[in-house]
């Protein structure tokens, strides 16, 4: 193409090679969602074609030249009923189909691997259970159900991965969840899609889907030393949670071993299932979430603990599977730094048997 200026040519080439018309399908849910998408596209096209056909054919057949005298028609109940009921039926099909997919996207399977994501102006911070954390990127293994537990530190954000057809808002003050199972290794866009202030359009990143082996390598290479649960354990001790939640017979707070997933009866008579949301509430607003049989003496930790800290604590509590583990934590307290000088650990047993491993 000698006649086109080389600059323009290069520009065109670059422009068109980057051109995309449909996002990649890189998760298990994507083809399902796309099926519904194309179904609605099809229905829309048929509807649009019918409208266009009607309008153009009538315009031609009954233009004033061909058809100078109009014939007055009042209407037709049968026809009107048809185009009430047929669209209604189609819409109801879409509703049911859509609702099935919606519930699938927002109901994580029990064995999903949980990654916490904190949104803040203007970055995404992902916290892996192994203690790896990353900013504006998310590494996940292919072929494994990943649950994201999202929260925002300030305003509404929205965690959007178009290639996975998955999106969920991160709201301040509450966990939301979404899950996906990536199928194809590769790098995909990660967007914040809820307008969140000045740098909204820079709150983007990459989702890197890796084969399970690569993922293992990545995990090993980006570890920060302690797992999320271990960080939580430190916090648990430094904030003196173990002063009450120490699993001893005379403990002032309920034992937290195996509490995750259990059904609790609260003093208000409500029954709740302990999940991340409940644990978060119980730490920040304890008085409204007192387990039956215990005095409402737990102070609130609102403003004293960051969202990341909460995540670590919750991860720790989730992994507590025996009273022995709690007592191990209790005894390790004195070995740990005083935790920003807050409330010296009360009534500690003398230091015990050394660090808890794992």
């Amino acid at each position, binding site marked *: 193409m000698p006649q086109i200026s080389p600059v323009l040519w290069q520009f065109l080439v670059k422009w068109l090679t980057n051109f995309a018309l449909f996002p990649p399908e890189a998760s298990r849910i994507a083809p399902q969602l796309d099926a519904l998408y194309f179904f609605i596209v099809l229905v829309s096209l048929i509807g649009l074609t019918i409208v266009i056909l009607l309008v153009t054919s009538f315009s031609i057949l009954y233009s004033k030249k061909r058809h100078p005298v109009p014939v007055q028609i009042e209407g037709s109940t049968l026809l009107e009923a048809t185009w009430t009921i047929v669209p209604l039926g189609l819409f109801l099909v879409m509703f049911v189909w859509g609702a099935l997919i919606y519930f699938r996207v927002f109901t994580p399977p029990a064995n999903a691997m949980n990654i916490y994501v904190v949104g803040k102006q203007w970055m995404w911070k992902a916290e892996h259970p192994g203690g790896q954390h990353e900013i504006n990127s998310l590494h996940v293994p292919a072929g494994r159900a990943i649950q994201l537990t999202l929260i925002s530190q300030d305003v509404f954000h929205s965690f959007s991965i178009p290639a996975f057809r998955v999106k969920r808002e991160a709201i301040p003050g509450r966990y939301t969840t979404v899950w996906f199972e990536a199928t194809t290794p590769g790098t995909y866009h990660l967007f914040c899609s809820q307008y969140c202030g000045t740098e909204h359009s820079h709150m983007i990143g990459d989702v890197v889907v890796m084969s399970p082996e690569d993922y293992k390598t990545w995990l090993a290479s980006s570890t920060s030393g302690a797992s999320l649960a271990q960080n939580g354990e430190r916090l648990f001790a430094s904030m003196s949670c173990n002063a009450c939640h120490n699993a001893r017979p005379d403990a002032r707070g309920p034992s937290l071993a195996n509490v995750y997933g259990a059904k609790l009866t609260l003093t208000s008579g409500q029954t709740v299932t302990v999940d991340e949301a409940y644990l978060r509430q119980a730490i*920040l*607003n*304890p*008085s*409204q979430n007192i387990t039956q049989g215990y005095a*409402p003496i*737990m*102070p*609130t930790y*609102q403003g004293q603990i960051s969202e990341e800290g909460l995540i670590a604590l919750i991860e720790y509590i989730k992994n507590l599977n025996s009273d022995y583990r709690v007592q191990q934590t209790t005894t390790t307290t004195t070995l740990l730094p005083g935790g920003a000088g807050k409330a010296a650990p009360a009534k500690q047993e003398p230091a015990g048997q050394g660090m808890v491993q794992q």
Partner: protein
Amino acid sequence: MSDSTVIAHDGLEAGHHEHSPHLHHQFESVEQQADAGNFAMWLFLLTEVMFFGGLFTVYMIYRNWYYPAFVAASHQLSVKLGGINSVLLITSSLTMTLGVWSAQLRRKGSLIFFLMLTFLLGVVFLGIKGVEYKEKFEKHHFPGANYSLQSFVNPASDPVAVAAGDKPLPLDIAQRTEVYFSLYFAMTGMHALHMIVGMGILLFMIFRARSDAYTTGHTAFVEYFGLYWHFVDIIWIFLFPLLYLINRH
């Protein structure tokens, strides 16, 4: 009537066109005008219902979420003052009714008297409201940066809380009292604002009533204002138990 013309009906209605001086040009008859005005006023009140409806929705949600905080915070209000205010407002509603009645009977003196009485009752109501607000400000119960939880985490320090027999609230619950007071000030503030607007109109009406504006058969304005004033009363009828009387036993 011929089957196909847009003919005017001047002949039919000629008798009706005596043109009352109060008949606006766009109406055909006084009845049409009165009907339209009345309907318009009700529609306006409908928008007011929705306006306060938003606040009541917020109230409903948070009262369910933060009931203990709402109880303790509500105990800070004086049932006595609130009750007096209720009676005052109901009384002003009565005087307003009597004002409308006087206008309809074309009694100028009693119309002015009742309008002024209504105005006065409104002033007293707002005065008492002001006293209540002042107390809240002094105790730092006005939401915002200076909000104080003292009365709720340590009720012993607060005679009002002691009188109500309040127990100390844990900090996290006590913090929610701010939501209550946000709503308290938003709701009573919006109500007071409506009263202030109403009292401005009352003054205007008193002024105009002196020159016989409403006592020569054209009472519509007084009647419509009466509707507005009663509506403000209705809002208070709901605000009083919802804000002042939460779990008083």
